[in-house]
């Protein structure tokens, strides 16, 4: 059974369409990374899934129900982002009590252990926390609610790298003990690709890729060699290109060569490298094939 399924989902604000014709299914008990550039539509998509926004067209289903304004869906998901709102007059400890009141699976002991590990002061108000501490507190709420579907929207904003690593580890460990579905949006794939199972890459509100992380690592190949040899590739196949000096260049193409073709390329002096999934996502979502270099290239 799929936990989230979208069919031709679109969402427009006034004249700007943030999500366009998106269709995908997310299976149960998977950690999916929602990857995309700033403004690609990640937050809008998550809010559509959370039932906060009404789709302009198409449909989204969560636990086979329409999530918009739906109390059952709301009871089984939690949406964590960095502008989560908590009442000014509550202390962190009281906020934890409130979360426990609303969510059936809430693990209070676990939440308080995490709070003390990250040395947050339970008697403080959420308002007085620093940016990174707010994010830390929010993700603790997200993990300890143990909802069947947990949505994290850029959860690590402002956290230092030690806290980020701890968070990913805590998430993974708790996931192993209590398998459930997570969607984790981020633009930093390299940090999270070892906890993700699937990657959903979106570009300008449309789906660029949706595949297991392991396949993403094999998806493309980097070729470096003289421009004469590499110019045979049609620009349609090239995901990314850079040139070095006058005659050497580096291109990234989809990895779909036969063994003989690879041998041929090797023979003509082309070196092959694997492409880091993080770089690949950047290339796939870039507006131009040459990246920032295009800005500096003189005509």
């Amino acid at each position, binding site marked *: *059974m799929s*936990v989230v399924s979208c069919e031709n989902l679109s969402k427009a604000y006034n004249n700007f369409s943030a999500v366009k014709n998106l269709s995908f299914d997310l299976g*149960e008990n998977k950690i999916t990374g929602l990857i995309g550039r700033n403004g690609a539509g990640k937050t809008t998509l998550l*809010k559509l899934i959370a*039932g*906060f*926004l*009404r789709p302009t067209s198409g449909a989204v289903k969560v*636990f086979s129900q329409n999530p*918009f*304004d*739906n*109390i*059952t869906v*709301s*009871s*089984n998901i*939690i*949406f964590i982002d960095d502008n*989560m*709102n*908590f*009442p*000014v*007059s*509550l202390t962190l400890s*009281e906020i934890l009590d*409130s*979360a426990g*009141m*609303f*969510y*059936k*699976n809430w693990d209070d002991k676990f939440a308080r252990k995490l709070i003390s590990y990250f040395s947050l002061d339970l008697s403080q108000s959420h308002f007085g926390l620093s940016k990174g501490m707010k994010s830390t507190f929010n993700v603790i709420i997200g993990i300890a609610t143990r909802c*069947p579907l947990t949505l994290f929207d850029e959860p690590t904003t402002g956290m230092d790298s030690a806290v980020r690593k701890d968070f990913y580890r805590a998430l993974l460990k708790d996931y192993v003990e209590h398998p459930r579905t997570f969607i984790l949006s981020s633009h930093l794939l390299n940090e999270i690709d070892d906890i993700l199972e699937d990657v959903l890459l979106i570009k300008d509100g449309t789906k660029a890729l949706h595949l297991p992380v392991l396949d993403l690592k094999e998806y493309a190949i980097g070729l470096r060699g003289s421009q004469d040899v590499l110019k045979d590739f049609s620009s349609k196949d090239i995901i990314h290109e850079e040139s070095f000096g006058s005659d050497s260049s580096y291109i990234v193409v989809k990895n779909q060569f036969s063994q003989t073709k690879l041998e041929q390329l090797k023979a003509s002096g082309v070196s092959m490298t694997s492409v880091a999934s993080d770089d690949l996502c950047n290339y796939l979502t870039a507006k131009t094939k040459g990246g920032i270099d295009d800005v500096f290239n003189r005509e």
Partner: protein
Amino acid sequence: MYLTENSILSVAMKQYRYKLRSYLELFSGLFIMQILGLVLSLGAVSSYSSSSNILRVSVMNYHSSIIMIFTFMWIFALSIILTTRQYRNLNYTFVANRLSSLTSDIGFILTSCILGGLTASLHGMLLRVIIYFSVDNGELLPSMFKPSPSILFTGITAAILYMMIIGAVGYLFGLLVQTNKLFAVLIPALFFAAIRMYIDPYITDAVEFYIKESSLTLFAGKVIVTVFVFFLFSMITSTRMEVRR
């Protein structure tokens, strides 16, 4: 996968409890308004004196209505604050939908009305006590000074009922403004235009419909129906909005 099922009412109850705990800062506004009203009431509303060669009489009128007016202003402001984006978003941190949020908001407003009506009346009593100790050589007219329990009860109930109308109107006004900022100007403009044309018999009738009601039970009935209609319109308005931006 095991899904938690929740009824809207049980979620609304949880949200109501959450709001009572977390909106404490809104009650501090009530406290400030009432103390301010009390201080302003300490001056006589009207005084009159007349003197002859051997006698000088001066009459001072004190009135606690300014405390009431300030409390009314507070409940109006509170209802509008509840409809602002920041407070509406607070609903959706945890489990909620629009109906449960509206229901818990209504619960919170009604509770605030009861608290506001009670404390406003008690401040009226406090005003009497202060005047009692501050008037050195004068006579206090006992009929006004010591209201019978039944009059006090009627006063408190009427205050609460008036506050309910104001709260319901404020909430609807706030929601309408959230759907379109133009309403923030349009509605007050229409309202004051209507007041200017007070000769209009419909408005006079409408006001008298409430104010001239002598039976407390009938008055309560009229208010409850009115409040219900206003909250119904609020519900319809809220269904035109996104849950959370």
